[in-house]
């Protein structure tokens, strides 16, 4: 390696860049991507990430199914998606190259770790030749071949680690290189390493050495011709942090606890991709948060409902298959009219499906998936940071209307990150809650005239002893009752109560013209892709608007009029058209479905192209 003084190199300013780190699932790609993201966030870039990892914790090393990827897009302007095609691909082995190369932009920067291109590695990736020997590769991309393995072993020499241990630091070496290419400081990652390995000084030293060596090598060796700068984005003023969806959901629940004055009881059973909410909440003990890792999904929801009966804010979360198991208890919660927040971090289905891939195919399950006439409110978060707000909104509805509420997020939101403007406490509205003490007038199923909510009488309150259960109950008294007319009355009352929730929504926001040719209606994590596509369409003066639903059920009262203000309504969603069917049945409109079920989010381009076809 040359030790000559750094040569003057050209620094180009870019508006944005999309980088994909890809390697074996044991190569630490998620961690590398997260570090790059955090550093970019602190520098004030807008960003969006897309972690994509295999369901198996350790698929066979070097194999195609074992490839783990992390895409991050950083930008100087407001962006909404992790980008379509990457400008840079870091491929740690042949399998990573094979899986990801087709996505890389032509002329893009391709960094390949040649240390992992032995015959055996090639075989595991099902290559019958070495793709690096193909001259086409160097013509099509800006290929940087570098033996990260050898450089890492050399860099961490003297730390006393074995070669095998040393090689675990190669992701830091790669990260150090990219930090140089993108003019990023090492501090954020250095600080993080120091904290993570504070009890393992040898590993800490090795990682720091690898990181710094990567930076130095990039600077000194003539690997890269150009350095790039992506200046900070002009985001609205405020204090920002980088946040992932699952931690944002957890934080929202903690905030809801403060706003309502109730302790959170979180009953949960481990499941991908929802477990991180449990991990996050378990650390908020000094907020009085109770976490209960139940024996199964059913016990998770039942314990949360029991806690709600006892006066707490009961919460449970899972992903599709686990939600299916909770279904009977949700019916009970509807019947006994207790508050409960249920979070579904959706993943690809049916059955176990694609545990680590994203999908939005549980909308019907959330809205309709219970026995009997069993309505409950359903919300969906649109971005990682929005998970915070939706968790609070779910708690507000649950506590105000004495009802279970389902909040839909998904794997893409849960694991994805974005810079998030931290709200001022004054922006968070209190959630008024009343545990009744009124012995005189207490009737377990009397209703508040405005919300139709029943009173919440908590065990331990003298004089309010009463019984609730899943049998049909008489209006007002709550006594068990099988009378036909009473049953119909109760079914209607429960339905009216839930439909009334729509009266508490703010007016629906329309992005773009208030009427015209085309409306793109979306929900959940497709927000970013749709917004990006609609902005692009506006730049080309296409007549298109966007409405993105937060409240899936009941639908907003003003939605019908909005939908009817456009000639066509396009509904992109990561399922076979579930919102589309719901909208068609509610409004008798011939909306256009745009389904996608590939376990991957929409790209902005896909949606833009469809918009162009319809409104161009």
């Amino acid at each position: 390696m040359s030790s000559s003084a750094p040569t003057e190199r050209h620094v180009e300013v870019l508006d944005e860049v999309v980088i994909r780190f890809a390697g074996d699932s044991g190569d630490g790609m998620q961690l590398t991507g997260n570090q790059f993201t955090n550093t970019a966030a602190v520098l004030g870039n807008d960003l969006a990430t897309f972690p994509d990892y295999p369901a198996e914790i350790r698929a066979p090393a070097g194999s195609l199914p074992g490839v783990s990827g992390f895409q991050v897009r950083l930008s100087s302007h407001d962006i909404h998606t992790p980008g379509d095609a990457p400008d840079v691909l870091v491929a740690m082995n042949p399998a990573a190259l094979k899986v990801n190369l087709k996505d890389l932009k032509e002329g893009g920067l391709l960094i390949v770790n040649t240390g992992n291109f032995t015959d055996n590695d090639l075989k595991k990736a099902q290559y019958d030749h070495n793709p690096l020997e193909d001259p086409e590769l160097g013509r099509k991309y800006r290929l940087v071949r570098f033996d990260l393995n050898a450089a890492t072993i050399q860099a961490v020499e003297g730390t006393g680690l074995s070669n095998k241990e040393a090689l675990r630091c190669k992701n830091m070496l790669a990260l150090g290189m990219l930090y140089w290419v993108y003019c990023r400081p090492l501090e954020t990652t250095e600080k993080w390493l120091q904290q993570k390995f504070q009890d393992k000084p040898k590993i800490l030293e090795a990682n720091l050495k690898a990181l710094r060596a990567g930076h130095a090598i990039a600077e000194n060796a003539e690997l890269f011709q150009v350095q790039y700068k992506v200046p900070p984005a002009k985001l609205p003023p405020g204090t920002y942090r980088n946040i992932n969806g699952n931690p944002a959901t957890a934080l929202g629940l903690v905030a809801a606890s403060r706003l309502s004055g109730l302790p959170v009881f979180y009953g949960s059973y481990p499941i991908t991709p929802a477990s991180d909410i449990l991990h996050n909440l378990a650390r908020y003990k000094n907020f009085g948060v109770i976490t209960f890792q139940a024996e199964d999904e059913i016990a998770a929801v039942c314990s949360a409902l029991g806690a709600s009966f006892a006066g707490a804010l009961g919460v449970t979360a899972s992903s599709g298959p686990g939600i299916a198991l909770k279904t009977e208890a949700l019916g009970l919660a509807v019947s006994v009219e207790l508050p409960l927040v249920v979070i579904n971090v959706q993943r690809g289905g049916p059955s176990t499906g694609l545990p680590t891939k994203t999908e939005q195919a549980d909308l019907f399950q959330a809205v309709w998936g219970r026995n009997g006439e069993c309505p409950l409110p359903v919300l969906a978060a649109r971005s990682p940071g929005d998970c915070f707000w939706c968790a609070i909104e779910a708690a507000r509805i649950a506590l105000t209307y004495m009802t279970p509420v389902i909040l839909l997020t998904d794997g893409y939101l849960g694991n994805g990150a974005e810079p998030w403007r931290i709200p001022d406490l004054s922006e968070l509205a209190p959630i008024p809650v009343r545990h009744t003490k009124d012995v005189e007038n207490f009737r377990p199923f009397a209703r508040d005239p405005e919300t139709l909510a029943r009173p919440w009488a908590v065990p331990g309150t003298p004089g309010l002893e009463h019984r609730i259960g899943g049998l049909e109950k008489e209006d007002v008294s709550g006594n068990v009752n099988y009378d036909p007319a009473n049953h119909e009355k109760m079914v209607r009352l429960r339905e009216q109560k839930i439909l009334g929730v729509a009266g508490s929504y703010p007016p629906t926001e329309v992005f773009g013209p208030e009427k015209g040719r085309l409306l793109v209606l979306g929900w959940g994590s497709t927000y970013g892709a749709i917004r990006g596509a609609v902005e692009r369409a506006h730049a080309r003066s296409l007549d298109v608007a966007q409405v993105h639903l937060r409240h899936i059920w009941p639908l907003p009262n003003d939605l019908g009029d909005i939908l009817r203000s456009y000639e066509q309504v396009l509904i992109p969603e990561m399922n076979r058209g579930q919102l589309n069917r719901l909208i068609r049945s509610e409004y008798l409109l011939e909306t256009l479905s745009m389904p996608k079920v590939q376990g991957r989010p929409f790209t902005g381009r896909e949606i833009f192209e469809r918009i162009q076809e319809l409104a161009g």
Partner: protein
Amino acid sequence: MPTLETPKYKKADFVSDQEVRWCPGCGDYAILSAVQMVMARLGVAKEKFVCVSGIGCSSRFPYYVDTYGFHSIHGRAPAVASGVKIANPELDVWVITGDGDALSIGGNHLIHAMRRNLDMVVLLFNNRIYGLTKGQYSPTSERNKRTPSTPFGSVDNPFNPIALALGAGATFVARSVDTQIKHLQGVLEAAHAHQGFSFVEILQNCVIFNDGAFEHITSKEVRDDRQIDLQPGRPMVYGKELDKGLRFTPSSIEICAPEEADLWQADEGCGARAYRICHVQENGDLPVPMGILRQVQAPLHEADVHEQIRLAREKLGEGDLEAALHAGETWTVT
């Protein structure tokens, strides 16, 4: 010095205004009455009681007791009750369940509640049949039982609820009989006094679908000789005149003179004797154990949950939302 007045109740204070809807002659009536009498004299404020049940004949129980009550879904009462108890450990939580509810559809919740050792009382009404769904065999029905779902006889082996509770780590395990009112009340009081998970199997007669299922051990004529009332620290004696005793040998249990009887050790750490005696054949020579089979002390789940919260607050101070929102690296855009 002024003392806190313990509330004075009568049984009637625990009778709700709901009409009891069990079949006439059902063993559940006697159990209901015993529980109401015991609750009235425990010295616990009435509003602290919460009865939680699942589904089945026995699970209608909460409707009839004038306390807080939650008739939940099939098999899930221990899970609902766990949430109630953890959310508010001050509450006095009773779970009412049956053999199908607790041991079939809800088996998982029962064993995990036992393992965690929450302080609650669980009454399992064992009638060895599904009553509410009209007479199918249950997980405690004997092998070969003919029922509508097993016209040629059941080929399932039954659970022994006591053995199951011992195996799952319940810290208090007892058994009684619906019609033996005094004994039942004594067991209920002991179960309530125990700090931890108290499991009580109550042999209960279903007059409609399994009448006389326990006659061979509970009828007036035979019960003194067919049952032994195990009392911690007391000699293992039985018979109308308490003229018979039991003692353990290395390989079995044998009948002996009362003065040669072993003292009953319900707190034996390994529970081996309780496990051995609960497997006594109902049709053999040895008496079937009633009373308290196991009683040991162990940490309470809900107490430790709240202790962790207390310690976290002591160490980190009361949670500060503003600080939590700003955790990690932040930057300001102006």
